[in-house]
């Protein structure tokens, strides 16, 4: 069960600004989904390993070489930037 206060904190963790109206609207709906998730409590999971991935792949490496064809040039990389300066992405100040 999440409270409206919890939701404000989760919104902050997710960098998602929530208005009071959002919080009022989302809280019951999110709780109904969380209730549904508790179905999993019935399952006997003793000794069961988690599956992060369905294929038996591990340590997929490539040669440590630069492939210029797989890189974007600076103009391409910046082509969608809403704000840029002197060839860089321009971001607001951190603090």
């Amino acid at each position, binding site marked *: 069960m999440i409270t409206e206060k919890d939701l404000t904190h989760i919104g902050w963790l*997710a960098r998602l600004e*929530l208005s009071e109206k959002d919080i009022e609207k989302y809280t019951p709906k999110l709780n109904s989904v969380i209730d549904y998730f508790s179905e999993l409590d019935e*399952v006997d999971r003793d000794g069961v390993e988690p599956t992060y991935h369905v294929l038996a792949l591990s340590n997929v490496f490539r040669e440590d070489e630069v492939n210029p064809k*797989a890189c974007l040039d600076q103009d391409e990389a910046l082509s969608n*930037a809403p704000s840029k300066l002197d060839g860089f992405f321009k*971001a607001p100040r*951190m603090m």
Partner: protein
Amino acid sequence: MWASINELRERIHANSSEEIVADYLERIGKSKLNAFIYTASEIALSRAKEIDENDIEGPLAGIPVAIKDNISTKGIQTTCASNILKGYIPPYDAHVIEKLKDAGAVIIGKTNMDEFAMGTSTETSFYGATKNPWDMERVPGGSSGGSAAAVAGSEAPLALGSDTGGSVRCPASFCGVVGLKPTYGVISRYGLIAYANSLEQIGPFGTSVRDVAALLDVVAGYDPRDSTSVDREVNYSSALKNDIRGLKIGVPEEYFGEGTDEKVEKAVRNAIHTLEDMGASLEKVVMPHTKYALAAYYIIAMSEASSNLARFDGMRYGLRTEDSDWHSTFSKVRAAGFGDEVKRRILLGTYALSAGYHDQYYLKALKVRTLIKQDFERAFKDVDVLITPTMPYPAFRLGEKIDDPISLYLADVDTVPINLAGVPSISVPCGFSDGLPIGMQIIGKHFDEAAILRTAYTFEENTNFHAARPEGL
């Protein structure tokens, strides 16, 4: 004007690709389905002309293909049906787009979808809902609803979608076309804008099993840029044999449970009997963890989504609102750019992964995923394919479920276990309920696309459901 690849090839030979592409563009322009977010008219026509003039060859030479709007297309707007990516023009092509271009295909436009592929109805798109070609008051399914509606409505002969928990198979079922989700790793996800990486695959749509196999032949294959891509031989069309003698079919009763519409159940059971008449045998299989798949799926998908969608910060691309500092800007961009369902999933995923809840939700779901996967491994010791309904009911009405997340999530009950296990599955038309198409789901072992294609092809060759077309379009 439903047309197969072979028919289009003849028409291109007799006339031109430019003419065919212009025909489809005209249909899209007049359509009320809202299947496309963006039509790449100029690019498509000039590419078609280039193919005509230079006699460019390839398995799909001059043939138009519609692309779901979460697959990156160089120079063509790609939005994931979200406000946050409005106007985003990818500077590179997804692997599947490179493959399509090499095969001579013409990218005709970007199809509508649920925002960031999160939905079962294509109603959460920022660009408005897509309508079902069989009944304009109903949803086309989702999340690849635009791709399925485009193919069913003759606005494209072929389309690509993506399937995280049923997003190719559900709309294929609701729109009466064929849609396939390959084994995890068969198609490179390079350039597919991620929602839940461990679950999703790109998948082909067509009006027949043959066309779907041909499109899969073009887009499948190893790509080192996707570390989960698998290096295997690609020749799916060779599996198309009208012969299933000796095939063992498993029918898991868990998929015919409460909530399954009677007419859907009847159509799928009749289809199974048809296959039995063709020489297949039926085996009983038990898949006891099926009922837990939905909760496990949503926990995993939302958790992965909360992490994947952290990249949308308004700095490098997409919507930007200005505020005093980084964190406020970041939070406001996302508040303005994402729709309600995307926000709900990010919030739930963040919650499920947050300190103190990780073991209670995420880890628990991953363990249940193991049990689901073992259900499939056990079943496939005794049978070659499993058959179930694709969806528990036919297409529902626009607006019917959109305000109740749980009732919408429950629609995915028969499709999500397949993504948790990573096995391949195809939906083929197998009947009608009051004029609405019903889909049969055929599921195979890891990398045994050949078995499901052969079963689907044999069914199609010996029945007529796939030939029915929506009227009045």
